[in-house]
């Protein structure tokens, strides 16, 4: 059983006990514990169930690579699934529950899968659930989803806050082990700005546990002085609990700081996502120990040798009284020695190599540990916990030689450099046969905008395997990064690392090497996804030769740990099955983030009121206070209508429409785009942008214009006013203001850069209010200040002046068909001007109206709306707007495209009005059906509705639509089947799209 030792644990503060719960059971740890170490200290060796077979799972590792010990953490607004116990710092009141079991961790029904596991090989789902097709959705998928799956989804709103932080540094160093610290010292000494991030709460990485010496001092002492050294440098910043998550193009990197995970509820942001722009990045990300593939290697109590050493040294936890060590390298001997020195029993070290010589094996023997070379584990005994191992010859097929009782197994299959961050941005790897791992190829680094490498690796992340090599490599990496960032490195010697000389390791991918299928079916490669040696071999036999395909077929290396432990072992097994070399098989692609980061950190401050910016007009507060029912228009909020007490939205719209037609309405039109275009070539420029002529517009006049893309399709419309000899003011749609301004600048900067034209987007400089209806002029005359009579200010003209004391520019334009003035005043005065209009307009029956009323008014008049009648596939000719296309101009944007055969096809659907025979409203977007069927067996369509409203003016439904040969079919009736399931067909007559005041007399008064 695992337990807390009476002494030891360099990271613990034993004077401060911390209470926590696991599955409701009250347990106690110490400050400095991780949840994993605290669970082990309480003999909680069973921590979860596996994904597929629901096998018992225990803690296998001690860091970010842990695949098994994932828990649901906390409750309510702080609940989060899939939290790794090995990287969760213990805090008072922590509450964790285990995952993936039903009904309980100890008794799990899903474990039945385990007994039929022979029926659930790789690709089982693909092979079994193919047919019938409908069964997948309704039968198979719900069952699989119930039985498989990790943590629960949170239910409550996140209680915490998050933020981003943008920094620019010369050199980012990822990893605060001895390599990262030394690299930072070298860069810092050169004077470059440095950010050093470390994912854990402690500096120094593994060196203190491994007993390394640096510059003649114990590693801990060197680490302390290095940190002090760095803290004293003005140009160096250190962050703990901050994981380098991803490396991206051009020296961009993300780091994930867990500020308050260990101190929840203290009002600090929980996570901070660092968005780092670095000239150079040094990854000192260390290495991960590989498991060994022997039968039963997933039984709780089987752990990585390094993890056993970590729990012992860092947290004073013994994983078991009797620990068998099984290894193919010297490093695991350190674990055996540490256990022995802590007074625990190590019955044997099973070394798969034919010989175990050298300093570490000798030392192990000297303190009385039995070393059995050429031996391996035939099988692990036990169910929910290890009870013993059967020993065999590594070279054989697994015939039992000996039984050894034990309650823990420490395994080591060698070390793999953490190459993830190096690889994120396409850094390449080389296979190192001596150490049986991939390591970064410094000559094929990720490259920046100049084609130069911007990532360097330091220490064991480079493949430097001894402390001495690590320190030299890290120092050189730091100096090289400083130089590449434009600084001169100090000519100082690297610190001298010292550790035992190690003998070569021997690659062991299957233990014993001749194991039969029964054993291989119990050799786990991927603990989280239940992928075994036999599964990968099956995938290879079934033709999944590419490592990427084999990964997806078997699920090897998927899920939350992304194969940190299984990657190399899996592809080694695959390559053996394919009879190919490992480098030929290659690796799967490493993608950011290194370990999962919270959704909250990605969103940063963008939640609640800050989720999305909402644009408000100068009159927004009045709208809010006067019953406005808002709708989003782009990022603006505009009143859809103004509801009065007891009134429905529909009733409000009808009232507003009638009132605008019969009395007077006002509309906040401030959101419409307003772009000034000025210069000697402005007329020529606008003639190219609009389909009609703008250069010949007289000063003081307005003209409606259409804009097309170079593909000929309508992209925007609006009224253009000529302000003076070389200045035009272009109105755009609400959503088009920024887009069209950008479109103009694009042409001016990239294509017609020699044209003398300047543009300015002055949309928000003005509040613009439409005063609409038969009484509109009366209201303006009452306010006074300028002559707005028809002779002085006729339809489609504008004038500057004052109205009611406000500086105003008045446009006689109408999108409603009524007598209409659009009045622009400086935005600061917008609210006051609106108030003045509303107050003075009372006697004329003034009511404000919203966007839906605007839509109804324009639809009654047959005016098109960009985004309703257009959808990116519509040309002006489709909408009967041929009159707005200049025949005189040699060219305009879209002209040539509109001459293509498909654009001139007479069968293009064209705009018409639609009147239902029963007066009802056709659903927006409804399709008209013709005779026959298309190639897919669907009914042929001959048209569709683009706008559809109830017209309060006419007392019936009206619609606009695009219909094949529509304008030639006026008077015909066509069918619009409904999709509400009733089978009803709405019959509509094709009519002229202008339903109201065809002659345009009402607007021109």
């Amino acid at each position, binding site marked *: 059983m695992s337990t807390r030792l009476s002494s030891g644990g360099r990271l613990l503060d034993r004077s401060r006990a911390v209470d926590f719960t696991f599955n409701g059971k009250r347990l106690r740890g110490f400050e400095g514990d991780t949840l994993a170490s605290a669970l082990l200290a309480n003999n909680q060796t069973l921590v979860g169930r596996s994904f597929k077979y629901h096998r018992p799972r225990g803690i296998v590792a001690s860091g970010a690579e842990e695949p098994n010990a994932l828990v649901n953490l*906390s*409750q*309510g*607004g*702080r609940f989060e699934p899939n939290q790794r116990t090995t990287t969760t710092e213990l*805090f*008072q*009141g*922590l*509450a964790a529950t285990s995952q993936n079991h039903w009904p309980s961790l100890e008794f799990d029904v899903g474990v039945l899968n385990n007994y039929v596991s022979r029926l659930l090989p790789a690709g089982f789902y693909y092979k079994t659930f193919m047919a019938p097709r409908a069964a997948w959705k309704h039968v198979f998928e719900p069952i699989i989803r119930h039985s498989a799956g990790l943590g629960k989804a949170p239910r409550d709103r996140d*209680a915490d*806050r998050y*933020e*981003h*932080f*943008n*920094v*620019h540094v010369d050199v980012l160093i990822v990893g605060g082990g001895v390599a990262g610290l030394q690299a930072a010292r070298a860069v810092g000494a050169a004077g470059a*700005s440095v950010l050093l991030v470390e994912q854990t709460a402690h500096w120094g990485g593994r060196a203190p546990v491994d007993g390394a010496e640096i510059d003649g001092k114990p590693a801990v002492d060197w680490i302390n002085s290095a940190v002090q050294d760095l803290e004293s440098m003005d140009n160096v*910043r250190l962050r703990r609990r901050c994981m380098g998550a991803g490396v991206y193009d051009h020296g961009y990197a993300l780091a994930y700081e867990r500020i308050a995970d260990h*101190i*929840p*509820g*203290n*009002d*600090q*942001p929980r996570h*901070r996502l660092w*968005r780092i*722009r670095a000239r150079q990045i040094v990854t000192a990300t260390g290495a991960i120990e590989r498991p060994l593939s022997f039968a039963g290697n997933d039984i709780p109590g089987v752990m990585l040798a390094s993890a056993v050493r970590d729990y012992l040294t860092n947290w004073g936890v013994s994983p078991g009284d009797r620990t068998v060590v099984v290894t193919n390298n010297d490093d695991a001997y350190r674990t055996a020695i540490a256990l022995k020195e802590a007074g625990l029993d190590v019955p044997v070290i099973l070394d798969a190599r034919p010989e175990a010589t050298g300093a570490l094996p000798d030392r192990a023997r000297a303190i009385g540990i039995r070393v059995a070379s050429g031996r391996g584990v035939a099988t692990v005994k036990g169910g929910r916990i290890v009870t013993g191992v059967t020993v065999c010859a590594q070279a054989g097929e697994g015939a039992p030689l000996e039984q050894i009782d034990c309650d823990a197994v420490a395994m080591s299959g060698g070390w793999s450099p953490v190459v993830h961050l190096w690889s994120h941005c396409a850094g390449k790897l080389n296979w190192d046969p001596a150490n049986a791992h991939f390591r970064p190829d410094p000559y094929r680094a990720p490259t920046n905008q100049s084609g130069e490498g911007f990532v360097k690796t330091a220490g064991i992340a480079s493949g430097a395997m001894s402390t001495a090599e690590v320190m030299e490599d890290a120092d050189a990496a730091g100096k090289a990064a400083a130089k590449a960032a434009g600084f001169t490195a100090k000519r100082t010697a690297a610190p001298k690392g010292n550790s035992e000389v190690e003998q070569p390791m021997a690659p062991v991918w299957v233990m014993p090497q001749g194991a039969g299928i029964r054993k291989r079916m119990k050799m786990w490669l991927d603990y989280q996804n239940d992928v075994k040696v036999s599964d990968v071999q099956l995938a290879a036999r079934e033709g999944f030769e590419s490592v990427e395909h084999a990964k997806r077929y078997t699920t090897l290396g998927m899920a939350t740990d992304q194969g940190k432990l299984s990657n190399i072992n899996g592809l080694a097994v695959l390559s053996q099955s394919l009879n190919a070399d490992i480098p030929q098989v290659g690796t799967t692609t490493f993608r950011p983030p290194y370990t999962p980061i919270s959704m909250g950190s990605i969103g*940063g*401050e*963008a939640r609640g*009121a*800050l989720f*999305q*910016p*909402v*644009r*408000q*007009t*100068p009159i927004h507060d009045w709208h809010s206070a006067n019953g406005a029912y808002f709708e989003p228009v782009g990022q*603006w909020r505009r009143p859809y209508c103004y509801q009065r007490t007891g009134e429905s939205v529909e009733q409000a719209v009808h009232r507003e429409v009638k009132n605008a037609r019969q009395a007077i309405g006002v509309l906040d039109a401030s959101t419409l785009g307003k772009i*000034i275009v*000025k*210069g*000697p070539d402005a007329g020529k420029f606008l003639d190219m942008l609009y389909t009609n002529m703008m250069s010949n517009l007289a000063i003081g006049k307005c003209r409606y214009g259409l804009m097309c893309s170079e593909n000929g399709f309508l992209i925007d419309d609006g009224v253009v006013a000529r302000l003076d000899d070389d200045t035009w003011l272009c109105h755009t749609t609400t959503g088009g203001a920024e887009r069209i301004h950008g479109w103009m600048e694009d042409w001016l900067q990239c294509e017609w850069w020699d044209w*003398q034209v*300047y*543009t*300015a987007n*002055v*949309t*928000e*400089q*003005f509040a613009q209010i439409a005063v609409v209806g038969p009484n509109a002029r009366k209201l303006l005359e009452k306010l006074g200040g300028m002559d707005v009579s028809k002779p002085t200010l006729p339809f489609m003209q504008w004038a500057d002046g004052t109205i009611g004391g406000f500086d105003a520019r008045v446009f006689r334009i109408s999108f409603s068909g009524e007598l209409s003035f659009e009045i622009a005043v*400086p*935005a*600061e005065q917008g609210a006051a001007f609106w108030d003045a209009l509303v107050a003075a307009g009372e006697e004329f029956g003034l009511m404000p109206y919203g966007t839906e009323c605007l839509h109804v008014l324009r639809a009654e008049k047959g005016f098109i709306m960009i985004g309703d009648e257009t959808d990116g596939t519509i040309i002006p000719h489709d909408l009967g707007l041929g009159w707005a296309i200049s025949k005189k101009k040699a060219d305009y944007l879209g002209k040539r495209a509109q001459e293509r055969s498909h654009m001139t096809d007479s069968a293009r659907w064209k705009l018409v009005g639609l009147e239902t025979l029963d007066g009802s409203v056709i659903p927006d977007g409804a399709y008209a059906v013709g005779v026959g069927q298309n190639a897919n067996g669907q009914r042929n369509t001959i048209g569709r509705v683009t706008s559809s409203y109830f017209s309060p003016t006419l007392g019936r439904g009206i619609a606009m639509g695009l219909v094949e040969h529509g304008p030639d079919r006026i008077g015909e009736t066509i069918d619009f089947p409904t999709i509400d399931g009733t089978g009803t067909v709405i019959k509509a007559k094709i009519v002229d799209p202008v339903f109201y005041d065809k002659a345009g007399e009402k607007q021109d008064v």
Partner: protein
Amino acid sequence: MSETLSVPGQASTADRVTVSQSGPRGMISVRCDLGGSKLAAAMSKLAGVDIPEPGGINLKGPNGLAWMSPDELLVLGSYENAVTDAETLRKALHGTHHLVANVSDARAVFRLEGALVREVLAKLTPADVSPAGFGPGQIRRSRLAQVAGAFWMPDATTAEVVCFRSVGVYMLELLTNAARPGAEVRFF
């Protein structure tokens, strides 16, 4: 139980960055050849400062000139004078290709004060706001969270932020949230 835990934050009132919205400011957008002699003379008279270098802003009391692009300046001054100042500039630039637009009403202006002012900016903008990359005399046209914004530092512990008026409410909330105590990084 974990919900009720509280550990004292690191905030001290001395570090607090205060955020306030300023009243309207005179802002005139001028597009023209920035090397022109007419421009330099007019600006010297109007704002009392030289044409700024790229990325620069020259301030003198309430007046100033900010570099916006290779052919665009922003003239800062009093709101009340903006209309006449714009007219003055149009006259001064008469005969050259130019565009002068009063944009005073189109903007919202904010003032941030406190020793950690750079941090508040760094939480929202990708621009380099380290002392090495940015300081008094410079302006950045960039992004603050999800909206466009420009900012400059009148002095080492003050920043002014300008955005479009329609997102002024968002910006005030955004800056106030970024300046909320308990999230000090102490990076710069």
